[in-house]
């Protein structure tokens, strides 16, 4: 088992290194290998998707079996999944039937969920400034929250003309662009660079074999 652990780690590290080096230096044989690996990677991701699909099915099958609350929904989920899957595998995802299933279910459902956000986000904004005790719950002060809120409001006001009033003169053509295109761009860039640093070190930890999220051996990945 220990050996197995080493084996997996070795695989992870070698794969990672090949792909990584391919990013930076062009060595023809390595490059071909890298392309092959990435191709396999994509295939495996698809296989993993099916594993996940099975997980989804089994979870809900269990719910159904154990007569858990909402078991009926699980049944519905399983049915709709299987029907769509079978039709999809049989007809292909882009047949008119599949298209109309998609347009009848997924499109409206997702769009409506997005529409829910309009209310949700308004609610969140209203609750954002909180009594000090609650502000204390959060990792920042009310002042920062206020800045956040004010910015959001300015942008919103500047995005569309006010009904019956039209555009707020300076706001829409000066302030909004400045905030959105200069200040925000600056902050976004800083955050993105930070995120990149984070991903860099996270990836490296794995390439070092220091983090081994794969495998269920408690002696690894764990403490």
């Amino acid at each position: 088992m220990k050996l197995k652990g080493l084996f997996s780690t070795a695989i992870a590290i070698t794969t990672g290194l090949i792909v990584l080096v391919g990013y930076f230096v062009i060595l023809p044989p390595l490059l071909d290998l890298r392309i092959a690996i990435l191709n396999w990677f994509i295939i495996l991701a698809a296989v993993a998707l099916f594993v996940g699909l099975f997980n989804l099915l089994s979870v809900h099958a269990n719910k159904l079996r154990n007569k858990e609350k909402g078991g009926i929904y699980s049944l519905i989920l399983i049915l709709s999944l299987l029907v769509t899957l079978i039709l999809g595998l049989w007809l292909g995802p882009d047949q008119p039937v599949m298209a109309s299933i998609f347009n009848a279910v997924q499109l409206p459902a997702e769009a409506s969920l997005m529409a829910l956000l309009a209310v949700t986000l308004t609610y969140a904004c209203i609750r954002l400034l909180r009594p000090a005790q609650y502000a204390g719950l959060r990792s920042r002060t009310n002042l920062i929250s206020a800045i956040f809120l004010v910015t959001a409001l300015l942008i919103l006001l500047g995005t569309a003309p006010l009904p019956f009033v039209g555009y707020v003169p300076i706001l829409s053509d000066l302030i909004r662009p400045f905030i959105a295109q200069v200040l925000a761009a600056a902050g976004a860039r800083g955050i993105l660079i930070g995120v990149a640093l984070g991903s860099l070190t996270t990836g490296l930890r794995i390439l070092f074999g220091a983090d081994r999220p794969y495998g269920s051996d408690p002696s690894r990945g764990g403490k």
Partner: protein
Amino acid sequence: MNWVGLAGFGLVILSAILMAGLAFLRRNSTPVFREITAFARLRKAIGLSVEEGSRLHISLGRGGLTTPQSAAELAGVEVLRRIAELTSASDRPPVATSGDGAVTILSQDALLASEQAAFSTGYDPAAARLTGLTPFSYAAGALPVIQDENVSANVLIGSFGVEVALLTDTAERGNTSTMAGSDNLSAQAILYASAQDPLIGEELYAAGAYLKARPFHTASLVVQDILRWLIVIVILVSAILKLAGVL
């Protein structure tokens, strides 16, 4: 591409060496890092969930391993693994949801590991779930978990899009606290407004170090800081050079 590639390679090599060196040198000493409320609160939430016999819900987002978001997912899996260890005493193991097959498998492994380690009774495969294969269906699938499963706190850590608002909102409806971080800026903006404890930017990747200070985790934070200042200097200098028309 060429000089850029070499520069990038150099950067990677440099950070690798730094990390390894620091991890080795500092394996006993332990550097001090700034406080991040979210992690303090998370540790607390973990204790409480064990105490109350309630569940923690760790949601790993919907980014796949094939995407550049994989780093966020991997960081999330580390957190899950750690939380699973910490709560292995609880009679209600944490439930992990994710929107990608591979990530689901990883989370299963993480939970399985802690179960084995804890010798606790039977591993419940339903503890690590794939709740949907598209961003919004994943979020929609996670809602019932938050609502129905006696979840006391939600840890949303991984790669989320705007759909994360649904999760935080549902958590808020259920009066469960939320600690959340995403690598997606829009999602971060939403979390900034709606989550109780948002993790901003790269704080997400620091979770490993803050939850279990192993040499490599602390080292990687230090490396991040070193690189950070390196970049700051480089940008400043080259900006001046640009201005002078040299570059």
